[in-house]
Each structure stands twice: as structure tokens, then as C-alpha cells.
């Protein structure tokens, strides 16, 4: 709840973000239309599904923090200033606290920067919606899991600051991978086979490609269970690693500043 309120305070910033997501939604939708016009059913999508992909991907950018930031910068900043010492005294786990905060942030970004551009997209284009409530619920679950995967990555990255202080290098590598291998740049279904194989081995597709495939599953006939399983496996891996690393960080941390 605190995370939700913290981000909902900045309304102008939110509106600006909604506007930008919508502009990009329009541009990218037209590029996909041009592509699928020439190659209908490319990658198993039809034109409407591809356009839906463009809009839902825009809607997910902020909730799953494709461009990074949030938890990462804060953890790193607190290491640099020494505030990290206080975090380690708190009666709740650092991971649990940050996760709760980030879910609040994600929920806010989903409602504001996710729902509004999608509605606008629905006004301008023919979007494909889930046929049944069951699929809609699974898509919602998949989106929540996408936010948790994204949190897991950002938390690990932030924890790195306990060891190397300046995490800009690794941070950029993760952001670049997130942009390219999540499906945000282009749906992974149009990737050449070798690149698709690489993308499938990485956690980034949990953030955009998988939730959208679940969203579209009624009309594309994609099996949902394996997709959700992939997300769950990555959540377990990332959060377990996060918890273990937190333990090590507590033991070895050298608090900066005074």
C-alpha cells in the first residue's frame, strides 16, 4: 500500500507517462500492421493479435520496469550513504519489505500506465481480448508474476552494490537484455530460431512475452500452463538467490559513511 501511495502522488508524471506510452503504442502498432500485412500469421499471430501485442507491451513497460530503476537505485543509494545499516536492523526481512513495496508500485503503474493506454488502444484499433473470465484471471496472475520476476532481477542487481558500490555496468547489461529479450523490442515469435532459443533460456521473456501470450491464449491456442510454470520457476530461482545473497551481504557488509 505504501508503494502504491508513494508513486500515485506524482500525477503529472503519471499523465505524461500515459501519453508517451500511448504515442509509442500507435507508432509500434502501425509498424506491426505493416509487417503482418505482408506476412499474415507470422509467428502464429494474426494482425489483430500483433496489434494487441504492441499495446499490452506498452502497458507493461512501467509495471515490470523494463528500463530498470526503482528498487535497484534505492538499494544502491542506501549502500552508498550508509542507510543500508538501518535496513539490516529492521524486524522484517529486507527482501519481503522491498517486494511488498514494489508490488504496490507495480499495482499503481498497472492501473495508471497500463489500463489507460490499453483503453485508448482499444478505441483506435481492434484489440483481441480473452474470451473467458478464466483466461483473464490467468493473464492477471501472469502479469503479477511478471512484476515479481522483474523485482527479483532488480533486487539481485541492487544487492550487488553491497560488493561493488557502482553497479552501473551490470545495470546496463540487464536493461539492454530486458529491452531486447523480453519481447518489448519485437515479439519473440518473429525472432530467428537461434535468437529465440537464447531468449527462451533467459528470464526476461517472463516480463512481456509470456504475460501477453497468456492474454492471447484463447485465440492463438497457446497452452498456458507451461508458460506460467516457466514464470514460477524463475520466481523461485530469483527470490531464493535474493534471500541467500541477502544473508551473505549482512555478514560481509561494510557500512559506508558516518
Amino acid at each position, binding site marked *: 500500500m505504501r508503494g502504491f501511495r508513494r508513486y500515485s502522488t506524482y500525477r503529472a508524471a503519471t499523465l505524461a507517462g500515459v501519453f*508517451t506510452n500511448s*504515442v*509509442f503504442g500507435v507508432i*509500434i502498432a502501425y509498424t506491426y500492421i505493416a509487417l503482418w500485412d505482408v506476412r499474415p500469421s507470422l509467428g502464429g499471430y494474426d494482425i489483430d493479435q500483433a496489434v494487441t501485442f504492441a499495446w499490452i507491451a506498452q502497458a507493461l513497460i512501467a509495471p515490470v520496469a523494463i528500463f530498470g530503476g526503482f528498487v535497484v537505485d534505492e538499494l544502491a543509494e542506501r549502500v552508498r550513504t550508509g542507510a543500508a545499516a538501518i535496513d539490516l536492523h529492521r524486524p522484517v526481512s529486507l527482501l519481503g519489505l522491498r517486494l511488498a513495496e514494489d508490488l504496490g508500485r507495480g499495482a499503481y503503474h498497472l492501473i495508471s500506465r497500463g489500463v489507460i493506454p490499453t483503453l485508448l488502444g482499444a478505441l483506435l484499433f481492434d484489440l483481441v481480448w480473452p474470451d473467458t473470465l478464466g483466461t483473464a484471471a490467468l493473464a492477471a496472475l501472469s502479469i503479477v508474476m511478471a512484476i515479481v520476476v522483474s523485482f527479483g532481477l532488480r533486487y539481485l542487481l541492487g544487492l550487488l552494490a553491497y560488493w561493488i558500490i557502482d553497479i*552501473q555496468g551490470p545495470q*546496463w547489461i540487464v536493461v*539492454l537484455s530486458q529491452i531486447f529479450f523480453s519481447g518489448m*523490442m*519485437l515479439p519473440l515469435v*518473429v525472432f530467428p530460431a537461434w535468437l529465440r532459443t537464447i531468449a527462451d533460456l533467459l528470464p526476461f521473456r517472463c516480463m512481456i512475452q509470456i504475460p501477453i501470450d497468456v492474454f492471447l491464449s484463447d485465440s492463438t491456442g497457446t497452452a498456458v500452463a507451461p508458460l506460467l510454470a516457466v514464470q514460477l520457476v524463475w520466481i523461485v530461482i530469483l527470490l531464493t538467490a535474493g534471500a541467500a545473497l541477502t544473508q551473505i551481504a549482512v555478514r560481509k557488509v561494510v557500512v559506508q559513511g558516518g
Partner: protein
Amino acid sequence: MVDAARGFVVIAGAWVRAALTYRTSFVIMVLVQVVITFLDFAAILIMFSHLDAFGGFTLPQIALLFAMSGFALGAADLLVGNSEALGRRIRDGSFDQMLVRPVAPIVQVAADRFAIRRVGRIAQALGVLTWALLSVSIDWTVGRVVVLVGAMLCGSVIFCAVFVMGGAFQVFAGDAAEVSNAFTYGGNTLTQYPLTIYPTELVKGVTFIVPLAFVNWYPGLYVLGIDDPFGLPSWFQFASPIAAVVFVVAAATFWRIAVRHYRSTGS
């Protein structure tokens, strides 16, 4: 004007020296910029693995449009891209300090925290441009060379004006940096593709309202020797300088109004 240029060079120079002090960091940041901006082209390459032509244009032709737009945005981003941060400066009160210093506020806004790493985008665009020029078939004339070089300069000026307008807008709208992103990075994304893939209204919008089509589309058509698919007047293909001048005047006016209307947050 000379004073403004000198002020810019002095302030920006200090930031360049600061950036170059940590050489490894600097090299990495430039490489990151090159890679991140190249990802857009990688997406186009992947699209072309399924197509022979996109919106009626071949890959080398699109590469030329892509590079012209990328260069223009890159140059503008390097020179005045920091105007995006005006919202933050207004919030923390540091814009007040700029207003009392003896250098024009626009120069300070642009030059403060001057980020030389942004040459990465320009380098990437020039790389794609080189490839495009080597692989595209153009019947080169002096006119085409002049239009190409002129468009890259005018395009940079047009994007500079967009950045400045975005900064000025934040005086009224508060922390709305992302609105200008829609026109700068959004405009760049839009013009990376041939405008034939968009509806006519959108093409008219980027011709008559925000003249982004003059960055690469109209001059690009002339350089490539393609008739305007929308049938707009052919003199548009030489009109980039006019569009640039008109838009700069509009941006300067808007900036002046914004600075005059500025109320400090008082912090």
C-alpha cells in the same frame, strides 16, 4: 549569440573533462549508448528476415532514413537534451540559480551536466549511414549530396527545437519530462520507418504540426529519387531549412513565454 556560444563551451567543456577523468567508465557508457540505439536497427534487421520490402522500401533505403533520423536526434540530444531535466531543476530550485547567472538560462539548461557519452548515438547513426550509402543504389548528383547533408543539419535543429519546447512545457506542467519523450524519442521511432506505413492524418501531423517529416522523410525521398507516395508538393523535399527556421522561432517564443511565467517553488 557569441557570448551564448562561449558560455556553452565553457560549461559543457567542464563536464566533458569531468567525464573523461574516468576513462573506462566513459568508454563503457559510450558503448552502451551505441548498443542501446542499435537495438532499434536490430529490430528492423529481424523484420527484414521475413520481408523483402517494408512499406515499399528496401532495407538499405530504410537504413538511410533510420540513420538520418538517428543522427538528427543524437546531435540534438547531445546539444540540448538536458532541457528534459528542467522539471527536476524547477522542483529542487536549481533553476532559480540559473536565472541570476550572467549566461542565458537556455544555455545553462543545455550545457549543465553536458553528457558527452551521447556521442554514442551519433556514432551508431553514422555507422548505419555508412552501410546504407554503400549498399543503396542512388544516382548521385551534387543536389542529392547537398540535400542529404543539409537535411542532417536541419533535422538536428528541428529535434533541438522539440527538446527546448519539451523543457518549456515543464514550466507549466511540472514534472512531465515524459511528454517530450513522446516527441523526441517517439519522433525518432516514428521516422525510422518509411511514413507509408502510417495513415495520412499522421503524416499530415508530422508535416504541418510537428515538422518531423522534414528531418528525413521529404529530403530522403529526394535523395532516393522516389516520388512522394502521398502526393504532397515536391518542393517539400527541399523545405527542411524552412521547417527548421519556423520551428526554431516557435520553440524560442514558447521558451521565452515559459521563462517569463516561471514561478519559483521557493525552496
